[in-house]
């Protein structure tokens, strides 16, 4: 390991280091602000480090991690999302008490560690790194999900995730072991060289399938999506935002790497399996969202369907697939952060319960224009309607799907988008509907920092919808 390797790892190590520092600091300075600032600073430093290490790419770091344009892109995305979640969480907890006190210090430690895990996963080129990254991410998430443990739902979410994540990790690990048995190598590079030899043995196919199951759980693809609505509902809004963006993005990033760098695309029937998973996720996610009155569950099912859309380019393969996945992940992350950010902001309050029911959103625009406008744009983006990032993302999916001639999944995409419109429009119209007569619901004003984040997300979503070229060039295959 050379000094340059250490330098190249800075975007991961800085947030992790900040988390450790915050942990130590917490023993001496019991200040919530200090810990939040330390971890937030670590995440921001990681973002700056990305710029610094960019010239080092492409580079193989200790055989475990690959630093290439794609890693940098996903690192940037994960760190940005984590930083925004940290700011949203700061405002969210500022008005709330957990376990009777206002010290939410461990929250940021867990956030920093989980983020380091997600980044490791996104750039992993060795199965060991995959597992380390995945477990670090999952362990952080258990704590984050059950953080407000005095709410029964949060505890339920944490335990549910713990059990299912353990099972899926086991399956993933077994899959990796089978791949090792078939190829004798633990790296994606080794897997790829083996793939080029004719004839895929049962170990190879079975291993790849089990890995897909493990990753499918993280990406909450149908039929591995059962946990999603309960967990999103039970966790506090910033944590839901985190699991919907950072965790899923990291999994998608590695899936892309697995299929492309690992050469798994060339296995027979894998593209078909991906197409079926994509079609099921789109359709089932949108259908189940139809009946939801709970906004967080609605967003959970919507995120299931969105990862179906994202999977479609992966099923199509080809040079456009990577671009489409990267663009989609970025657009989706911005949009879901905005949506959950609004849920968090309008829930701020001493009541303890979050504003999750549809009725809390009726006429929101006339009470609190800023969060309502942000949510409206986020919903339009989720529905994939132009002048938002979501539309450009969907365009990419169409382009990749058409290029790969995946006609039947595309037709399912069209049908499920139409179904999805129904519930997006319902919420959208509710936002602008006339205020109910008894509109005396206590709703505090957006806390400064969170409002800033929401405005930034709004601008970013619209900007990428109107002038997508900067991001288009960023995701373009080097």
């Amino acid at each position, binding site marked *: 390991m050379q000094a340059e390797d250490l330098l190249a790892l800075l975007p991961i190590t800085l947030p992790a280091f900040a988390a450790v520092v915050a942990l130590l600091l917490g023993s001496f300075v019991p200040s919530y602000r200090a810990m939040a600032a330390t971890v937030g600073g670590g995440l921001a430093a990681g973002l700056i480090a990305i710029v610094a290490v960019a010239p080092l790419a492409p580079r193989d770091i200790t055989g475990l991690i690959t630093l290439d344009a794609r890693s940098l892109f996903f690192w940037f995305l994960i760190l940005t999302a984590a930083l925004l979640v940290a700011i949203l969480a700061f405002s969210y907890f500022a008005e709330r008490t957990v376990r009777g006190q206002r010290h939410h210090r461990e929250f940021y430690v867990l956030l920093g560690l989980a983020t380091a895990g997600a980044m490791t996963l996104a750039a992993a080129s060795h199965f060991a790194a995959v597992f380390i990254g995945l477990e670090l991410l999952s362990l952080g998430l258990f704590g984050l999900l059950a953080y407000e443990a005095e709410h029964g739902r949060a505890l339920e979410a944490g335990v549910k995730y713990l059990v299912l994540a353990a099972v899926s990790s086991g399956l993933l690990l077994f899959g990796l072991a089978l791949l090792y048995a078939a190829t004798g190598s633990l790296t994606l590079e080794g897997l790829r060289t083996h793939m080029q030899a004719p004839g895929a043995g049962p170990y190879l196919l079975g291993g790849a399938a089990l890995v897909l199951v493990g990753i499918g759980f993280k990406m909450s693809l149908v039929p591995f999506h059962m946990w999603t609505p309960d967990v999103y509902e039970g966790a506090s809004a910033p944590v839901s935002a985190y699991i919907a963006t950072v965790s899923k993005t990291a999994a998608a990033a590695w899936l892309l790497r697995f299929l492309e760098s690992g050469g798994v695309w060339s296995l027979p029937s894998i593209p078909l399996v991906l197409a079926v998973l994509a079609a099921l996720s789109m359709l089932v996610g949108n259908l189940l969202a139809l009946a939801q009155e709970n906004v967080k569950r609605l967003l959970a099912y919507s995120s299931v369907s969105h990862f179906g859309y994202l999977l479609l380019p992966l099923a199509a393969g080809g040079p456009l697939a990577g671009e489409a996945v990267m663009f989609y992940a970025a657009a989706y992350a911005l949009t879901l952060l905005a949506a959950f950010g609004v849920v968090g902001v309008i829930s701020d309050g001493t009541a303890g319960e979050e504003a999750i029911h549809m009725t809390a959103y009726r006429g929101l625009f006339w009470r609190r224009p800023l969060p309502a406008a942000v949510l409206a744009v986020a919903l339009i983006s989720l529905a994939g309607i132009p002048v938002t990032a979501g539309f450009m993302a969907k365009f990419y999916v169409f382009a990749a799907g058409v290029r790969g001639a995946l006609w039947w999944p595309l037709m399912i995409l069209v049908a499920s988008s139409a179904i999805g419109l*129904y519930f997006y429009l319902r919420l959208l119209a509710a936002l602008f509907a006339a205020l109910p007569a008894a509109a005396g619901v206590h709703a505090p004003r957006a806390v400064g920092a969170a409002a800033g984040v929401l405005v930034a997300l709004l601008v970013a979503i619209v900007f990428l919808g109107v002038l997508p070229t900067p991001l288009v060039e960023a995701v373009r295959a080097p």
Partner: protein
Amino acid sequence: MTLAVMLIVLLLGGVVAWWSEHGDKRWPRWVALLTVLLSLLFGLTLWASDGAWRSELRLPWIPRFGISLHLGADGLSVPLILLALVLGATAIAIAWPIRERPGFFQFNLLWSLAGMVGVFCALDLFLFFVFWEVMLVPMYFLIALWGHEHRQRAGTKFFVFTQASGLLLLTAIVALAFVAGDVRGQLSFAYRDLTGTPLGPAAPWLAAGFLAAFLVKLPAVPLHTWLPDAHTQAPTAGSVLLAGVLLKTGAYGLLRFVLPLFPETTLAWAPWFMGLGALGIVYGAVLAFGQSDVKRLVAYTSVSHMGFVLLAVFAWNTVAWQGAVLQMLAHGLATGALFVIAGALQERVHSRELDAMGGLIAKVPRLAAFGMFFAVAAFGLPGLGTFIGEFLSLLGAFRANPVITAVAALGMVLSAVYATALIQRAFHGAPGPHVVRDLGRRETGVLALMAIGLLWLGLAPQPVFDLAAGPLQTLAGAGG
């Protein structure tokens, strides 16, 4: 440049109108009206200017996919842009008294209008699709927020229908660009790069995607079921824009994109779609006669009238196409005016049911007179624009397919039946208990201007023919 300025004026005007609500509830409508009149002024300069493509503008947008911001208006676009703006001004005038969230209302109206103008002048298929969708969201809000009792359901139905077919259009656009890109060696979404590219066996599939979107919007039977709900539930201003302009975007799409991009396919399929047009004419007219809700009645007449356009478009000759263009303009004015009258009736009688009306002629002579005028316009009285449109459509279609045209001609008889029934049931018969006031100055002025427009199109349609002649000749050349 004019087109770009026009779009920017409309979009900015929308924002200013919304914002001005904070000053005074009456400001948004003035801002909106001035915005539309200013755009109309730009539109008139377009008409006055020469050249095949007026005010063309091309800027790179997403070079990765060969997408550019490409605007331009030819003799086919200019009349439709003017129609959109005239009806936009009408809609604002009709919605003048609106008190509930007026800023947001005018914002939606102007943005929807901007989308429609954009649709009529986009020369890049990706940009076209963007405008296609931009006009929908504000229109959805107009229906779902300011509509009548079942507004939410009608708005959603409208949106889901158009969006689902729109995504088929997007699939077809992307596939077309890739297919043509493989032939030409360079990916491009530009209209001019795509027309004339040989598409091989993919052409029928691509054409089907385009047709799905445009036939839903037109609407052609059996894809019309969103229309009666949306038109009935929308506020009057929304109905005017829906019937007057939105339906025309479907017809425009057929003439601008489907025929020139897929000439062989559409020629081969022409009898089927002419048949669909004739079916729509008769079916719409029969159903219109059966309605008791005055707005639903007018909505079904739209199905019938747009059937003439479909018939004419697929007749593949310039006479029919001239008829289609005139029919679009005349139908826009006539149906827009009928919706204004239906709205005025609903406002006065507090019901849209024809049974609740009757005998109104004694109480509201001016409203009844205008009702009579636009009802006879709907069945195509000679001297009015609708007559010229339907006559030329049938004349051109007869050359292409006499049998289908003979069936379609029945529609002119049936339209007389429903139009007289409308007049009879609403204005004549035993007077009801209502105490109603006649049209005010604002409504009278609006309707009078629309009546003059129809007379002008009926008595001196030559300027429109001259305008559209160039593009239609080019189109006829594409079909060989």
